[in-house]
């Protein structure tokens, strides 16, 4: 009996995952993890166009592995820690199948350059697209469903994920060659000397000291904010309806939580959702990140629990972390304030 359990255990722990991994070829892993943002043929969308020949010709496998592993904190691209090393290798093999170019290999030695001079060159030639502080292009990649004037937005060079992934040599090579099909030019052809380029690399590398400070954590924020109402459910809903209007939001609808799931006559009228929307904010949010619809329209729930009436909402400042998008930070902070003001007014 004991051997039987041992055999089953070994089968479950070792054999089953191995079989599963065998099925997970690079394309399957790509379809599961990457296609949503990078597109079926790697032609990009919210994510960069991975199949761009010049990208594959300048990006080393080491860069791709690190990018997959670390992601781009605060810039949508998540860190894929769930993939095994073998899966990452298969994934890169699949991405490489879009191009005949041989993956470049770069030295890990730092490029010697003068960061002070590099800053000036950077401000003259790079800051227009990459931002004076290396923050990158505004917006969330080339957002889904929106017209594309460019196939790619300038990456954030001050991002920890980028700095960990890209070696000095790779940055230098990209500056020298540029990337056809994107606004990134060959700066050697644009008239910069190799020393100028080395200096820019040194300046970009200097972003490293500031990269950690840019990242913020929202883990201290509760996922849900709950307040107790001194009023009945019906009174609280009426007060919330009035508060929504006074905050320049439009009331979308009031519905019971189980509406659509239960016969109308049997719905629990003590669990009520108040939906509202400010269309300007909604459209701004969707411009920044089309995935935010997950928390739209604005929702406050009123719930009778025993003799208490609770008013609650999902905390936008905490929900922000699921998008890995720093550009939503200020909007989420603003929305939390809006929720607080609405509820404060309703519960006065």
């Amino acid at each position: 009996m004991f051997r039987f359990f041992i055999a089953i255990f070994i089968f479950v722990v070792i054999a089953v995952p191995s079989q599963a991994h065998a099925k997970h070829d690079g394309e399957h892993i790509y379809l599961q993890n990457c296609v949503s943002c990078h597109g079926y043929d790697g032609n990009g969308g919210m994510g960069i166009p991975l199949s761009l020949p010049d990208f594959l010709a300048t990006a080393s496998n080491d860069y791709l592995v690190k990018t997959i592993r670390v992601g781009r904190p605060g810039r949508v691209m998540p860190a894929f820690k769930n993939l095994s090393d073998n899966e990452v290798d298969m994934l890169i093999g699949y991405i490489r199948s879009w191009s005949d170019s041989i993956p470049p290999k770069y030295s890990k030695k730092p490029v010697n350059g003068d960061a002070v001079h590099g800053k000036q060159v950077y401000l003259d030639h790079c800051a227009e697209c990459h931002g004076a502080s290396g923050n990158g292009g505004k917006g969330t990649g080339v957002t889904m469903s929106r017209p594309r004037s460019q196939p790619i937005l300038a990456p954030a060079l001050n991002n920890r994920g980028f700095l960990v992934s890209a070696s000095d040599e790779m940055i230098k090579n990209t500056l020298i060659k540029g990337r056809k099909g994107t606004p990134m030019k060959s700066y050697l052809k644009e008239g910069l000397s190799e020393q100028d380029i080395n200096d820019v690399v040194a300046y970009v590398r200097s972003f490293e000291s500031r990269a950690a400070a840019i990242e913020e954590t929202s883990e201290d924020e509760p996922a849900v904010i709950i307040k107790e109402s001194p009023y009945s459910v019906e009174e609280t809903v009426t007060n919330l309806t009035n508060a929504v209007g006074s905050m320049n939001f439009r009331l979308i609808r009031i519905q019971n939580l189980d509406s659509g799931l239960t016969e109308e006559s049997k719905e629990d009228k003590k669990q009520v959702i108040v939906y509202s929307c400010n269309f300007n904010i909604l459209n701004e949010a969707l411009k920044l990140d089309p995935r935010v619809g997950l928390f739209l329209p604005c929702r406050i729930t009123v719930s009778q629990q025993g003799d208490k009436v609770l008013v609650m909402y999902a905390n936008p400042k905490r929900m922000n972390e699921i998008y890995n998008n720093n550009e939503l930070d200020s909007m989420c902070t603003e929305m939390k304030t809006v929720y607080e003001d609405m509820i404060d007014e309703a519960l006065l």
Partner: protein
Amino acid sequence: MRIYHKALVSLLLIFLAFPVSAVADDLIMRRIGMTFPETMSALQSSIVEEGYKVSRVQRVDIGLTSSGYNTAEYRIVFFMREDVLHDIVKKHPELIPFLPLKITIFAERSETLLVTLNPMKLAEFFPDLEMQKTFAQWNEEVNRIVDRVQAE
């Protein structure tokens, strides 16, 4: 020896309850190679096939085209099992703002994207042991729902 048997059986059950392939990404996203109406139909069928009821389809399209979108095809599909919802309302009211479950669906040219919160993220938000199994179950079910649509 009996204690080893028990330990092994427990480990076995843990592995079976939490599949090794479970993904802990915060969002579950799928690109579907079908048009928006086709995907919407497939999504609703897949939700029902998984034993859920679609409670509402919310439009989020007012002003989308005027703000630069090529399409106004953007919806949120709410779904839930009634008995589970009522049970959670009684036992875990802090989860109410996340219910019913929902999937955002929007068009990108001739393709469609599905986005939803990974239910395992709720386990991080609410480290309540009693609910872990439910979150893991939702995770598997939601993945099956979107995978079926992607496979069509």
